[in-house]
């Protein structure tokens, strides 16, 4: 069976790749496109370390088949900073020590940004439920939740209507 040719957009860049029907988007990102920021923690959609957005929707890339990326807009952690300017969430995570080992951090950042793009005024409970699909074993979630709430507050204060820069 010949490989499938996929044309897609990843972090704003037109991208093409060849893949098998049963390869996941995560596989292709990591093994073929050199985008190893998305991590495989479980391969079954239970940990969120592979989180990306596809056409604006937060998904686990381990549960998206690579051919599905055809014609889609994919955003990964590598596209979150603007050149050398970190996204406010990225900055805040470092400032507030919202990471220890850092393996879950890309997933949390992608998921948090997706939240703030929809809701710039989430309650602590809303943040926790939105991020329930992102497992962290190091931090106990406390500083992650605080960081997201702080960024939301700062963005509201700055009059930002949506978190997309």
């Amino acid at each position, binding site marked *: *069976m010949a490989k499938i040719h996929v044309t897609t957009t990843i972090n704003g860049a037109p991208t093409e790749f060849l893949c098998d029907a*049963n390869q996941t988007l995560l596989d292709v990102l990591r093994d073929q496109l050199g985008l190893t920021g998305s991590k495989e923690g479980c391969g079954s959609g239970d940990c969120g370390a592979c989180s990306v957005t596809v056409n604006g929707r937060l998904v686990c890339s381990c549960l998206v*088949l690579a*051919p599905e990326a055809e014609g889609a807009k994919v955003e990964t952690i590598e596209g979150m900073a603007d050149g050398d300017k970190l996204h406010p969430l990225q900055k805040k995570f470092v400032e507030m020590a919202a990471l220890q080992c850092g393996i879950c951090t890309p997933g949390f950042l992608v*998921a948090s940004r997706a939240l703030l793009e929809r809701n710039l005024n989430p309650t602590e409970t809303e943040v926790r*439920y939105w991020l*329930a699909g992102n497992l962290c074993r190091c931090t106990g979630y406390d500083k992650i939740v605080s960081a997201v709430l702080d960024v939301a507050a700062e963005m509201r204060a700055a009059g930002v209507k949506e978190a997309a820069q």
Partner: protein
Amino acid sequence: MTDIQYKAAKTVREACTLMAAADGKGRILAGGTDLLVQMKAGTVAPGVIIDVKKIPEMVSIAKTKGGFRIGAATPAAAIGEHEELCKAWPGVVEAINLIGSTQVQGRASAGGNLCNASPAADSVPALVAAGAIVNIQGPSGKRQVPVEQFNTGPGRTSLANGEIVVSLTLPARPKGSSDAYLRLIPRTEMDIAVVGCGVSLTMKGDTCVAARVGLGAVAPTVLLVEDAAKALVGTKLEDAALDAAAEACSAACRPIDDKRGTIRYRTKIAGVLLKRAAAIARDRVNGISTQAH
């Protein structure tokens, strides 16, 4: 290199043709949140993966005569964003929105959840309580099945070769109706339901005039518990009525002991959830909005 093929169908007919041609080795890809997990685990080895997400009617929500038609592959997140659906069927929506994490919600669909036919599927008890109809299309044409008859056992549906579920129809809603879905899970998220209970009520004043109860994760398929409904209809949903309906749920259970719960526990919780879900549904009829969590 692999022998597995991937095809994105553009119409329902094309999807059916591909399924039929695959002769049992075809698998529909909606959100993939069950299919990909099963492929990785080796429990499913498709020959052809048929992506239906490019078929507009399968990924959209339309209003019908007073009711709704939900495309079978519509992502759960999109269902949760549909204001009118949320207002008319808060129980169905919350049930679908409980399938997995936010990431899973970005992909998982009610059709996929139903066709995966897990006894513990979150959407199904609420769909059963809602009296949803499954719209099927196949080589021999279209047909409809009440959702409580659709699954025949764990992992088994009544679909014939080449048939696919195109959409789910939610019927028109009499005034004074609402619904609710509750599940028992050990954590607050990310778990498969130990028990799931959907209750749909129609009230006239403070009297219940119609009810349907769907119970999940307590039998090989989701149960339509008619005895529980009977115990509620004609009552004011006072404690005695709720207790009777709860007992009917516990009596209807045929659960198993497994890594998620015991027979004893599931039987008890079936009753507990009935009472709580019925109370929430009633509150919603009365305009008191309650979040399930």
